[in-house]
């Protein structure tokens, strides 16, 4: 889309785009270029001697079973976060769409988690499940379940999933609610007159009409689970115990800053960038299609 009416100025437009372009070049293109550059060289520990090694860093990475463990973990983790997050928020949105009294109150509470930083959300859930004082851990032990996320890897993963889903529920909820409220009431009423019960009305009418919103949210949630959960993992488990919550975005940081493995970390960065670009592309293709609905 283009404007028909434009202004004629020679230099002004360059001044106007300059701040954004300069910032983008310095803090986006330069580091991204560096990541690509560092992914094909090796450097000794003192930052001296750099050597061009072609794709050795990638070969090294791909021959490391630890990396594939992290890939598998991240995929499973994202699947859990996205499916649980979408299911819970859809249920809540459908209910909030039905009620008349108290809807504002429910909505006000349900948007709170959005305002909580992932790193703080991690601290909150860590407190609830703390093995010695956590109130939820205490309740679980009262019914015979010993929950200790500090030593048990599976339990640590479950806790990270819960905290990540909690943090993202508000966002999904608001989009589903907006989607539900844009469905014409006449459609629902017509189905009701024809004798369709609430369940039938939801699955046959509302659910298919919500599918564009649902698909959009699916992509957003996968991106969220892949990248924005860094704070949750860092605050709760630091990737542990062992490697049980060491998802890709945490591994990039851990290998780069703690392990000082710049080449390996950069190779991981390059792969992650490719994943984001791919996901963004999928999303845009989809949004373009949605415009034609």
């Amino acid at each position, binding site marked *: 889309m283009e404007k028909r009416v434009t202004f004629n100025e*020679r230099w002004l437009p360059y001044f*106007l785009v300059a701040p954004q372009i300069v910032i983008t*070049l310095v803090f*986006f293109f330069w580091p991204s270029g560096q990541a690509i550059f560092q992914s094909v060289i090796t450097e000794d520990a003192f930052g001296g001697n750099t050597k061009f090694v072609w794709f050795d860093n990638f070969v090294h990475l791909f021959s490391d079973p630890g990396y594939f463990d992290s890939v598998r973990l991240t995929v499973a983790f994202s699947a859990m976060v996205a499916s649980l997050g979408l299911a819970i928020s859809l249920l*809540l949105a459908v209910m909030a769409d039905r009620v008349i009294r108290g809807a504002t109150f429910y909505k006000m509470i349900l948007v709170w988690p959005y305002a909580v930083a992932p790193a703080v959300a*991690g601290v909150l859930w860590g407190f609830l499940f703390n093995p010695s004082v956590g109130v939820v851990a205490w309740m679980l032990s009262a019914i015979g379940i010993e929950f200790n996320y500090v030593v048990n890897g599976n339990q640590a993963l479950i806790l990270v999933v819960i905290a990540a889903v909690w943090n993202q529920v508000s966002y999904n909820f608001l989009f589903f609610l907006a989607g539900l409220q844009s469905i014409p009431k006449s459609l629902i009423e017509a189905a009701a007159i024809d004798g369709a019960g609430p369940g039938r009305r939801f699955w046959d009418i509302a659910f298919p009409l919500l599918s564009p919103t649902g698909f959009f949210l699916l992509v957003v949630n996968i991106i969220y689970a892949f990248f924005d959960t860094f*704070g949750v993992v*860092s605050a709760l488990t630091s990737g542990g115990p062992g490697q049980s919550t060491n998802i890709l975005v945490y591994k990039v*940081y851990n290998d780069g800053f703690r392990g000082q493995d710049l080449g390996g970390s950069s190779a991981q960065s390059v792969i992650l960038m490719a994943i984001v670009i791919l996901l963004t592309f999928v999303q845009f293709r989809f949004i373009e299609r949605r415009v034609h609905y």
Partner: protein
Amino acid sequence: MSHLILIIGVTVIAFPIWMTFVAATHTQEIMLKPPVPIWPGTHLFENIKLVLTEGYANRPGSVPLYITLTNSMIMALGVAIGKISISIISAFAIVYFRFPLRMLFFWAIFITLMLPIEVRIVPTYGVVASLGMLDSYPGLIIPLIASATATFLFRQFFLSVPDELAEAARVDGASPMRFFWDILLPMSRTSIAALFVIQFIYGWKQYLWPLLITTKESFYTVVMTVSRQANVVDAVPAWNLLMAMALLAMLPPVLVVVFMQRQFVRGLVETEK
């Protein structure tokens, strides 16, 4: 039935926040004996005052929270205002002017969309370090304002502004900047407000970036401080103080979300289009 499910949902969602509040109202001794209370006590103001003026239990590396809260406020405002200012003028240039390299600039901005800083964290740190911007407000703020979402929002909005307005301004001999200040900017008020809410929260929630580039306590932000203190292994953790800190760390964005809910929802839905 609907109310029942909603009440269960709301209770589960609100429970962590409630427990944070409760923990912040008790003394350290009570918070160390399980089962911990689930109803508030009477030490809220004492705990809040202590963390605001002294930080977490006087440990090394603990910072009075009034400093970190101020830093978070500066960072969140800086990110929100910075992002809005640079992107509104670049969107203006891209929509209302024809100039060589326009499409190149457009794509250069476009490609930054969605690429989170966590992904290229090591090299970005290197760049900021070599520019001497560690431990500074510009270092905290500027790398985060390189993102395309706001530019896109303004571009969409400008494209929907009727052409007659620009035409009239041209006929009357108004300069482009005059048109921008007197017509376009006032018309963008609601978009700016919506975007401001979203970007403020985004800036406030930052964790990894401030964690990496600040080494001086006077530049710590509140989110990273809370998380750091939680990770310090303590013989006798002061849960009451830690949760008082967490409470203060989430208060500003929660207030923004609750009191500016209309702008918030609008901003959320629009930035994703």
